[in-house]
């Protein structure tokens, strides 16, 4: 099942194995039959490490979702809570524990597994509620970096951006550093660290300090990674705001990909069986897993959506032809060979059917007038047109009460592309938004300002055009079918973050000193000592391996752009991507919105 993890330059199966080992050890510690009470948020990420079968091997007989009230019956010896260290969850646990019938026999033992770390605050809270003593084993499961694919790792920490950039809380950065230490323990010390941004600086400092203070971490593993590039999300606030135009990017924008799974409207996936009239359409959404283990998906996921259609029709012809082969098979040997290929061909056909349906669903959206109008405005802003006045389309959308997040994405995009809006323009937008969606959104607007996404112009200089020109962010002649530049992922706009990675590899950041100064935060380079004998001697023609760590989130489009660079003929570098969270503009802005209570009426 680890096909998707071993497909890349770095075999991430080892990371998952390490995660499984730690989990097994903990489960065995709580000897006997067990039931796990899950913090729902964790089930997705855990699913990428271990399936239920593994848990069953360690006597996990039942699984429940964490909720208030009395725990379900279940005749097990141990009840283990798998939770994030959050106070509101501690309240629920307290409720569960207090309602446990102490008179029942046999009594059940309680344990807690904090993911990814124990929290003093939480344990204090439990102590104050009088239940801390009820737990026998209180441990942490340091699930920091979870392998999503052969070249992709994520911490799935959804509040990371808010904590790092709004609240100056370095907890997530600490976890990132810890995750990197785990990676280095498995894949060797990374000799070179580059970074841009305040948070990048903190993480690098933490790594260096951790290495110093835990000398046992010096190992003799041959380094797999040549370079680590730490990037603050706020160095490039623009990219996540724009609508992604790769196949995978669009799936995420429209339907949302969670832990490599997507839920789709079921109508298009109803099996068409002959002679079955009047069958009810399924009502449950169709759930699909999307990763590189699926050949076709690996081929089309990073392409610009406009290039997907031709791949699908070519594939359809190939598969048809393959099935036709059965008419040509004459000898027993040929027939046997055909039959042995059958499962593979059937899988390919089913995969093609799924993605054809998905592509149709996406096309319905991308060919709509609204999508076109929205994209037009985005591209105008990104190419620097009319970013200094109130935009008619945005005004119209507010007047028609389009979803607030859509509006926020657009006004933030305008603000970023203008290095802040003129006070008059900003006040105008704010007033319209508050009058249409409610005054309580002052809190959200304030958060956006703090994050640098929607703010007044501070100096009279708009740096964006210089940055855009120097880094070649807007490319007029984009080839969506056979791209020659990363700008294909947004049909014209090259993600700033990926451009920085690209230029770091070649010719190096010295060439863009001036522009780097215009972007927030320090940029730096650190070297980590490798034990003698482990200095990497690269073979001629062998690529460097760079781990790019996005602190605050990364989009699928940026991942596609980095993969494009990896595949370039004489690129010289292959990339592995790590992040605090996989995001798109919508989920990102949502994480910055104040949690408003549901209206009382």
């Amino acid at each position: 099942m680890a096909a998707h993890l071993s497909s890349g330059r770095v075999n991430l199966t080892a990371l998952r194995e390490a995660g499984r080992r730690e989990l097994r050890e903990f489960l065995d510690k709580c000897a006997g039959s067990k039931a796990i009470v899950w913090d729902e948020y964790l089930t997705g990420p855990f699913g990428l490490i271990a399936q239920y079968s593994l848990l069953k091997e360690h006597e996990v007989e039942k699984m429940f979702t964490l909720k208030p009230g009395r725990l379900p019956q279940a005749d097990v010896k141990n009840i283990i809570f798998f939770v994030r260290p959050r106070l509101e969850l501690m309240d629920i646990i307290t409720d569960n524990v207090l309602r446990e019938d102490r008179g029942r026999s046999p009594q059940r033992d309680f344990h807690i597994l904090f993911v990814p770390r124990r929290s003093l605050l939480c344990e204090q809270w439990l102590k104050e509620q009088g239940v801390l003593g009820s737990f026998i084993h209180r441990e942490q499961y340091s699930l920091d970096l979870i392998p999503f694919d052969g070249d992709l790792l994520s911490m799935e920490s959804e509040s990371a951006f808010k904590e790092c950039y709004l609240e100056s809380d370095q907890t997530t950065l600490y976890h990132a550093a810890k995750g990197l230490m785990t990676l280095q323990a498995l894949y060797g010390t990374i000799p070179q660290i580059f970074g841009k941004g305040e948070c990048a600086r903190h993480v690098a400092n933490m790594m260096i300090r951790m290495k110093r203070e835990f000398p046992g971490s010096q190992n003799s593993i041959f380094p797999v990674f040549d370079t680590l590039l730490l990037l603050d999300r706020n160095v490039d606030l623009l990219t996540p705001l724009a609508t992604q135009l790769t196949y995978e990017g669009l799936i995420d924008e429209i339907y949302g990909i969670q832990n490599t799974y997507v839920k789709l409207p079921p109508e298009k996936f109803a099996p068409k069986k002959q002679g079955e009239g009047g069958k009810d359409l399924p009502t449950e959404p169709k759930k699909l897993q999307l990763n590189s283990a699926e050949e076709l998906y690996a081929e089309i996921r990073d392409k610009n959506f406009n290039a997907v259609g031709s791949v699908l029709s070519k594939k359809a012809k190939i598969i048809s032809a393959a099935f036709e082969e059965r008419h040509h098979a004459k000898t027993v040997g040929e027939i046997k060979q055909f039959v042995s290929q059958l499962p593979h061909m059937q899988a390919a056909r089913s995969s093609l059917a799924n993605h054809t349906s998905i592509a149709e669903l996406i096309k319905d959206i991308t060919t709509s007038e609204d999508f076109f109008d929205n994209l037009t405005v985005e591209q105008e802003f990104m190419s620097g047109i009319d970013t200094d006045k109130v935009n008619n389309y945005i005004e119209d959308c507010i007047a028609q009460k389009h979803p607030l997040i859509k509006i926020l994405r657009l006004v933030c995009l305008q603000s970023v592309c203008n290095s802040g809006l003129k006070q008059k323009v900003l006040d105008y937008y704010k007033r319209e938004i508050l009058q249409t969606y409610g005054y309580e959104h002052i809190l959200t607007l304030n958060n956006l300002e703090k994050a640098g996404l929607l703010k007044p112009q501070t100096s009279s200089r708009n740096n964006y055009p210089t940055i855009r020109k120097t880094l070649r962010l807007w490319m007029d002649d984009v080839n969506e079918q056979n791209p020659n530049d990363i700008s294909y992922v947004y049909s014209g706009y090259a993600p700033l973050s990926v451009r920085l990675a690209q230029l770091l590899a070649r010719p190096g950041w010295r060439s863009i000193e001036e522009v780097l100064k215009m972007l927030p935060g320090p940029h730096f380079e650190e070297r980590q000592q490798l034990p003698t004998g482990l200095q990497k001697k690269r073979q001629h023609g062998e690529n460097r391996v760079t781990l790019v760590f996005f602190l605050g989130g990364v989009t699928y489009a940026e991942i596609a752009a980095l993969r494009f660079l990896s595949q370039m003929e004489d690129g010289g570098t292959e990339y592995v991507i790590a992040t605090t969270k996989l995001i798109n503009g919508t989920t990102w802005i949502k994480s910055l919105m104040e949690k408003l209570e549901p209206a009382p009426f």
Partner: protein
Amino acid sequence: WQDYSNDWSPKDTVRRMQRGKVCSLERFRSLQDKLVLLDEAVAGHDGNVITAVLIFLKRTLRREILFRELEVRQVALCHLIHFLRETGEQKLLLDLLRFLDKTEELALSQYREHLNIQDVEKRKEFLKSCIGLPFSAEDTSHIQDHYTLLERQIIIEANDRHLETAGQSEIFRKYPRKALILNKPLVTTLFYCCFYHYREPEGTFSSPDNLKKTFKIPDKQYVLTALAARAKLRAWDDVDALFTTKNWLGYTKKKAPIGFHRVVEILQRNSAPVQVLQEYVRLVEDVETRLNLATKYKCHDVVIETYRDIKDRVQLTAYKCKVERGSAEEEKINSILSN
């Protein structure tokens, strides 16, 4: 597990805590020691340890001293603020913000609390108390508006509830309300008033005119909202009046702060009859848009007139097949073509 030794220095204590050992901090009595403890914890980056030290300092230091020391320790300060938010210690948080002169953040933190107040009267009073807080000038006016709006909504809600139950008002009988008007945004409230209280004199709280003046709603927004409401009620005369102005000679003409194509859109969405739709399609300035809309919604007269005005005989002839044989429209086309 508990550490009872008296020998560990603040620095070493922090080390031990980072390794997961539970350490008692009680013996650190001097301010000096406490501050070293804090600085070491911060340098170590471990959130748990920082929290533990802050809890200890919060308990054993006088407030002013704690605040003063945190003022010059950004990371620890942010950590404490986050901690106070998480544990809901609102009062201490506000005191801290006040001390730091983080006036705007203080104001917003306070304002945020209104979301936890369900009772509308209490919420209204709370919002009133927020008005004097140190918001920016712009935000102050928004908070003021928020209060004023809720105040009005409470009055309107009470009145309309009364009208509904009395059963005498026709509009409430015909179009029963699906939700309360409390806590709704301003524009939604305006729509509501344009729907249920359109012709009320300016003096009442539920008069749309009153709303417009009180909240300085721009013309564009007002017209759009009123149009949507009146169109829903199929009150075409009201729609007409919205766009009709008398100039100084007493002549009426139609104008709109929004494009007439938008007016057409909204009317069409509310299934306006073709005669009404036609009026406004005719007023669309851009010829191409006008033709598109007229053709789309079968406003034959407008199509014909437009082709005539731009002198397009070819298209006009072609359009004949779109109208009914022997109809007035066909005759019109023929008479134009024959000059």
